[in-house]
């Protein structure tokens, strides 16, 4: 990083003695002036609050302390305690990733498409994996409710970090106070954990956690901003302030032996797409690092062959500069770096206002096939793999009797949805966490299954 010139430092000092210190993280005199102004406002606010309590505060020393903290690279959002995410003010604490403006742009654009939808289900379910501060579902909720009020939005935030869950819970309560509508809930689960492997950590796999909390297994929209930086990129492309102060857990996927650098960076995406299939999400929005990763994720989604369409959104997806569809009909929309991948299937196409939609039967069949229950493509090619179950599959679409498994699944889904609705109606409106912080509980494996225990204070 180039040194800051002496003339710039002198100029900054002439404007304000605190400015030269702030030039180190900001690099630019206008940005530094803005940050200093915000810090001053923060100090004034703190002083006012203290005075209301009958306390006194030395403003100068507090400001000096905050400026020196900022000069050492601590993110301004951690110092001030909040960050603006779209229209919302989200509380930030160290140990939880600070929301990024690019994420807000993607979420806002998704809601912009959804709010013009002719027909949304009366109960829209949003699953946010790796929720962090809870900013993504909260912005989604805020934007959707300011645009239309005929939808009852149910939100579930999932994270592995207790710190993040605590903060998300705080943010959700704040948001619920200002707009008491819809339902919000948080659970602790590990997204990448294989549900069939032995459980040794204290976080459960997502599927088990959903079951255990009595939550529905099917969700309409899946959004996620998972860790996506590969270890080598972590050391080369991230800024010092990010490396020094933001949690590595939220940035770099965990390392698994015999795995390349890129594979580790992409670790979450295969799991997220599988979860999207398992919860039968109609719309999936995943944040990515760059165009290469976006194309890898799009390719994976395409290989899953359950989606009707896949799009790559850049940092400003609201600008309608659509590049010609590249490989596999994936169009790239907007300006700037590639930021997220959007996939949709079935009814999701109509919600997003996309033309390509497949019939309900085709969609169910495709979903069913992707589990490996049915051979892909031609019946004659299906026989080539000895491991595949052998079916005498007719070329015409199957009748209802031929799909016992799918209809069994659907019945279970209906039943569990009804149970879920009943639970909701019994609870009434409002936050439906019955305990203050989810991490106050832990699970132990006993001879008769999993047991929920309250942690001793």
């Amino acid at each position, binding site marked *: 990083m180039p040194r800051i010139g002496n003339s710039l430092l002198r100029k900054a000092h002439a404007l304000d003695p605190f400015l030269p210190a702030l030039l180190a993280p900001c690099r630019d005199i206008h940005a530094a002036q*803005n*940050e200093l102004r915000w810090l001053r406002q923060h100090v004034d606010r703190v002083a006012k609050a203290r005075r209301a309590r009958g306390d006194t505060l030395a403003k100068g020393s507090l400001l000096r302390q905050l400026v020196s903290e900022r000069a050492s690279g601590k*993110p301004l959002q951690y110092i001030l305690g909040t960050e603006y995410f779209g229209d919302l003010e989200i509380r930030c604490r160290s140990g939880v990733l600070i929301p*990024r403006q*690019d994420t807000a742009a993607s979420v806002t654009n998704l809601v912009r498409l959804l709010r013009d939808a002719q027909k949304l289900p009366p109960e829209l379910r949003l699953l946010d994996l790796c929720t962090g501060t809870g900013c993504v579902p909260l912005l989604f909720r805020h934007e959707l409710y300011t645009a239309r009020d005929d939808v009852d939005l149910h939100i579930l935030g999932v994270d592995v970090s207790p710190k993040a869950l605590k903060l998300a819970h705080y943010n959700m309560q704040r948001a619920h106070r200002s707009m008491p509508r819809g339902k919000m809930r948080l659970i602790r689960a590990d997204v990448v954990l294989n549900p069939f492997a032995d459980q040794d950590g204290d976080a459960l796999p997502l599927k088990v956690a959903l079951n255990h909390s009595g939550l529905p297994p099917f969700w309409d929209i899946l959004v996620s901003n998972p860790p996506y930086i590969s270890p080598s990129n972590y050391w080369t*492309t991230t*800024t010092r302030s990010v490396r020094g102060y*933001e949690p590595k857990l939220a940035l770099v996927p965990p390392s698994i032996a015999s795995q390349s650098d890129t594979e580790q960076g992409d670790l979450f995406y295969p799991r997220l797409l599988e979860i999207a299939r398992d919860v039968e999400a109609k719309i999936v929005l995943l944040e990515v690092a760059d165009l290469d990763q976006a194309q890898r994720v799009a390719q994976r989604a395409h290989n899953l062959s359950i989606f009707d369409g896949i799009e790559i959104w850049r940092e400003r997806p609201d600008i309608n500069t659509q590049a010609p569809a590249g490989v596999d009909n994936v169009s790239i929309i907007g300006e*700037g770096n590639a930021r997220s991948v959007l996939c949709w299937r079935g009814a999701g196409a109509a919600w997003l206002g996309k033309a390509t939609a497949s019939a309900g039967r085709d969609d169910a069949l495709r979903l069913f096939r992707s589990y490996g229950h049915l051979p892909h493509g031609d019946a004659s090619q299906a026989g080539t793999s000895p491991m595949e179950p052998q079916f005498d599959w007719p070329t015409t679409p199957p009748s209802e009797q031929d799909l016992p498994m799918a209809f069994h699944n659907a019945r279970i889904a209906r039943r569990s949805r009804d149970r879920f609705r009943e639970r909701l109606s019994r609870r009434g409106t409002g936050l439906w966490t019955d305990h203050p912080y989810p991490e106050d509980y832990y699970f132990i494996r006993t001879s008769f299954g999993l047991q929920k225990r309250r942690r001793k204070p």
Partner: protein
Amino acid sequence: MISAPWVCCNCLSRTGKTLFRRSLRYQSTATSGNVPKALLTRARDIAIEHKVLSEKLANGFDTRAAKKLGEYSPIVNALGKWDKASESVTELTSLIHDSTTDSELRSLAADDLEETRAQLAAASQSLITSLVPVHPFAHLPCLLEIRPGAGGSEAAIFAGDLFRMYLAFCNGNGFRTGILKYENINGTSEAGVPLSEAIIEVESDDAYGVFRCEAGVHRVQRVPATETKGRTHTSAASVHVLPSLQDNSSVQEDFDNPESDYYIDQKEVKVEVMRASGAGGQHVNKTESAVRLTHTPTNTVVAMQDSRSQHKNKEAAWALLRSRIAQSRREKREEEMANMRRSVIGVAKMGRGDKVRTYNWGQQRVTDHRSGITVHGLDDVMEGGQTLSKVMDSVRGWLMERDVEALIAEEAEKK
């Protein structure tokens, strides 16, 4: 021997000239049945554009396109009628000139031709009328300002006469009026004393279109009441006509209304937000929240960076941009109004020379010098009766002819 009496050659030439001149009128030209070619091509262009616009509107609604379409449709209708009439005229003439048609059919065609010609004339007249652009302020109420010009107290008395004439005209024709100002030469508002300034507000809609032709210097030729020796004086009074633009604030405040000063088309604004160069996303954590808006048609730039929230900065920037654009629009409109006020009547044009109309008491006539019309019911004119309406109509017709000429000249310039 009878010899021809001596005649002055000047007189001889003058008799010839007067005879010749009386039959000609330079100022106004009667409209004939055919439409000038330039206007016809313009109408055809408009018809093509109308077609394109209606196709565009069928696909999606656009406020501007719809407004334009509404403006064009009378022209297109008139053109259609004209086409029909001219076609039938050519058909009939060809039928008459054709040697193979029998005599009975020919006589029938000849009978029909006259009627069709009349239809064609009407159609071309309506086509020309529809092509002439309506004055942008014609739909507005107006202000009539009357001031005495050259001629001392006689001019002031005549200004009072004009004031009463216009009031009577408005009453007789159903225009609502309000007197904004009435001041006599003594500085009071007492009636009966020579007038020094009067402003009438005609509150009805379309008043500006009706009274626009009245602006100018009105000349009077009579033996004034103040004259003791019975000499005829010539004096003048000036009439200003201005559209009265009311600020209806409800329209102004509405951002989505294209009529409002505050309206900005979203497509015309370039939004720039400060983005991290390089990776972005989780890789960097920036605090920049500056937003810059550029209104491309006027090149107005607004940058906002006060708040930490990009969203709030954007809102503030939009508000600022709206008010700036509205301000510039208002200034432009006010300048236009000032130009118009100057062009209606300049200070130098206040004399007796550049008159628009003459009221002659001795001959009991009123002559308008623009349309060239002369009427003899002076008393009826001064009472704001039918004769005044006739004069005003003829002036409006003359104004329209000037507009048509300007239109033709404009078309010719384009080629």
